[in-house]
């Protein structure tokens, strides 16, 4: 039976993001999206995104600037982890200025071998800007876009409301339902029409925020902060107007999953995680579904292929989360990096290689060797080149506005864009 009606059962931002994404890609094919909104249990009011939010905004023909401005959007170059060595910075941005500088990271590691106290944040625009408290978009330097990658955090409720309005305008059918089991909903009149279900859960929601402070006393930072306590991570996130503080359980760190069984895909996404934004997982799991879009809901082989892909995604994500916290067994990435400063081939985009490099350097792993291809060149040739690029990175970061000034400009631009 052809899929004509997709039901998404869940709440909050995950529900609206899923509806918007599926509706955008499937409405032309005659598929109607129905959202079944259950009462929210999560009290997490902040959401984090990588650049998928900007991509989604463009897909939905929205203005990223306007959306973020209306949702108190803040920006972050990455995460600062207080238990890691050097400055504990982990960011998604490329080291060096652009991807053409092949093996730049190996030059960096050779430099670090001589100057162990040099933090890894020295070697990326994002890292230096994070340390200096500065921010800007790469729009004036598109060639450096990869080295200026950032994450976005904003008010989840406001973004959810925005998307809900957009979804309604675009033909998504909305229903409010009590927190029933999905099984009883399936039997209802509305539920019976559904061919394929997306069941969104957040079984590993973090503790509610332990504080939310207006930004009056302190300046916002363009970097999220994580501090390790006995059994928890304390996460501090800055939106444009408030600082939030959350407690994340570390045993184990919350991890998302996605599984397709029969006519239902269950996607479990915690609202907040340590380093890797959960929304990236949500979008990846939906994009994979779209890529494999089935002719009928019960597609055993297609479902198995989907599950296999998403399990791999989760494995790579969990491998990183395990390496993040002290005391865990060394996985393949850590062992390979320790031998030769390389990473194994990853099958998904769960974690960027730069996040791995930052983490492993931050853990104090010193590779036994670096690129053999660069060993023809002595340190006297390589290290000055690395310093030259680093100086360029430094001047680029210093030329950016202070983060608070940037936010003010951003807010003003948003006001203009929205006409408020």
């Amino acid at each position, binding site marked *: 039976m052809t899929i004509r009606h997709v039901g998404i059962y869940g709440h909050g931002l995950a529900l609206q993001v899923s509806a918007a994404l599926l509706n955008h*890609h499937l409405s032309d094919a*005659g598929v109607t999206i129905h959202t079944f909104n259950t009462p929210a249990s999560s009290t997490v009011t902040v959401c984090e995104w990588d650049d998928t939010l900007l991509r989604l905004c463009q897909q939905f023909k929205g203005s990223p600037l306007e959306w973020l401005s209306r949702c108190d959007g803040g920006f972050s170059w990455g995460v600062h982890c207080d238990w890691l060595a050097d400055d504990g910075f982990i960011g998604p941005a490329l080291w060096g200025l652009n991807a053409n500088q092949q093996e730049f990271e190996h030059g960096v590691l050779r430099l670090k071998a001589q100057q162990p106290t040099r933090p890894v944040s020295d070697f990326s625009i994002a890292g230096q800007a994070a340390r200096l408290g500065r921010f800007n978009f790469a729009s004036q330097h598109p060639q450096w876009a990869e080295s200026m990658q950032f994450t976005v955090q904003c008010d989840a409720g406001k973004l959810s409301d925005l998307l809900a309005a957009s979804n309604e305008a675009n033909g998504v059918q909305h229903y409010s339902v009590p927190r029933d089991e999905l099984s009883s909903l399936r039997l209802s009149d509305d539920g019976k029409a559904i061919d394929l279900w997306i069941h969104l859960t957040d079984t590993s929601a973090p503790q509610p925020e332990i504080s939310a402070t207006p930004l009056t006393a302190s300046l916002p930072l363009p970097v999220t902060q994580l501090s390790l306590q006995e059994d928890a991570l304390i996460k501090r996130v800055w939106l444009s107007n408030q600082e939030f503080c959350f407690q994340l359980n570390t045993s184990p760190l919350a991890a998302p999953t996605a599984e397709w069984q029969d006519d239902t895909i269950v996607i479990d996404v915690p609202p907040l995680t340590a380093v890797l934004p959960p929304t990236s997982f949500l979008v990846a799991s939906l994009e994979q579904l779209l890529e*494999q*879009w089935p002719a*009928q809901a019960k597609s055993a082989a297609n479902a*198995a292929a989907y599950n296999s892909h998403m399990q791999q995604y989760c494995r790579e994500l969990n491998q990183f989360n395990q390496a993040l916290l002290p005391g865990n067994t060394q996985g393949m990435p850590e062992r390979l990096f320790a*031998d*030769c400063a390389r990473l194994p081939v990853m099958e998904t985009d769960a974690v960027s290689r730069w996040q791995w490099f930052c983490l492993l350097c931050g853990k104090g792993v010193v590779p*036994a*060797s670096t690129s053999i291809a660069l060993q023809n060149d002595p340190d006297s040739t390589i290290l000055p080149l690395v310093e030259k690029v680093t100086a360029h990175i430094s001047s680029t970061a210093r030329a950016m506005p202070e983060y608070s000034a940037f936010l003010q400009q951003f807010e003003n631009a948003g006001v203009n864009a929205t006409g408020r």
Partner: protein
Amino acid sequence: MTTKRNIVILGGGTAGWMSAAALAKFIPATHYNITLIASGDIGTVGVGEATIPHIRQFNELLGIDENTFIKEVGATYKLAIRFKGWGKADSDYCHGFGYSGEVINDVEFHHYYLRAGGAATLGHYDNYNIAALAARAHRFSYPLNNVNDARAHFGYAFHIDASLYANYLRKYSVARGVTFIDGQVTDVLTHPNGDIASLELSDGQQLSGDLFIDCSGFRGRLIEQALASGYENWQHWLPCDSAQAAASNAIDNPPSYTLSAAHQAGWRWQIPLQHRTGNGIVYASEWLSDEQASEQLIAAIGDSADAPRQLRFVTGKRKKSWVNNCVAIGLASGFLEPLESTSLYLVQAAIEKLIEYFPATAQSHGARDAFNQYIDTEYERVRDFLIFHYYQNQRDEPFWRAMSTMQLPDSLQARIAQFKESGHFNAYRQGLFMPVSWTSLALGQALRPDTVSQRINHIEPGAIAERLSRYALQLDNLVTTMPSHQQAIDSTEKGAAHYPAASHSLYGASNK
């Protein structure tokens, strides 16, 4: 003063000299000595070799001028592999080094092709792959550097004389400091921890080393005979165990494809070189005798052929390609029949990964484990693709009937089931063949999915057919503007060819 480490390569075939050349290029001579041992008494497989586009990348990394390479190894160009008799006895399709059609609104081209009626309405799927079309027309030109032009979206490779390539790389390597020793290994001496300490040669010489690279071929003189890696036998999936090879005269305006023609118990290849044509027959000895194979090969290639040379093999791979301080590359690491011209690719992949993970010490367990995992994945994914050729057939001969009912590896079973159900193959990131290749094979061998993407249900089949027919005509016209393959070779011989940079993909620049 730093003591130099010694790298010893055993074997003087293509794998050995490719390894020597790459190491000589990338490993600092100030820190390493590289020695290659080979014996003139031990023959190499050395048949005409069909390659895939990655060979260009390898040559580019080594700084080898492509025009010089073509002259030195008697190469011709290659745009596709043409499969005749695979699937059905009368089927004929190409696996071209290019994309078929375009991805439109995030939906793969073949969904549109099938929704519009497939071959019955639109003709052969090859009509949408410019590399396949040019190959069938015996034409060749370099891909253009304009992504908006259909002539930009393909890659190319070569047919080469593997022995000449090995000789060329030998000169290259020796000129870069590789020491060549003509000798035969009589004994392998090991340290108490199992590492190889040295090789004893027939003239009494002892050659010690820190890292040994076993390119000794099927026998695996170091990896198997000395270190007992173990072998995973895959003959239950790929039962061909014999081949015969013979050269015949060169072909005027040769095809720009490798021919793979299925017969009652295997397949026959034709690889056109400038100076001769390489031919061979691959077969399962349980279903076809050596004599029958020989007769069949001679009948196909005519009297101009040399007497066929007999080869035997066991399809599979070493359980571990890197054991202690020994890395096996090429046939010493594993054997997969060259149905998709993957032999040199697998050599290249191993060399590049070894250089990438080059060990600081013999105790680099992380690098070793990661390398072995990488090689396992590469071999297993190529293996699955090869098995798919055999499994997906509707031929009547006993061999083929047995192939179509075999118990598949789980990984392949899952892929085929997914395609049957949805018309989609999931992509993987590590591995040679992307969904575009899997789809070419599936459609070429008449595996039609139960359905196609529902995301294009709203588009009328007639409208799709009209658009695709226009596209096919456009490709056809573009191919007629390409020079003949012979003209392209002649132009290269005159040194007038300005070749493009190598692509990192089997399919050239993406049209996505």
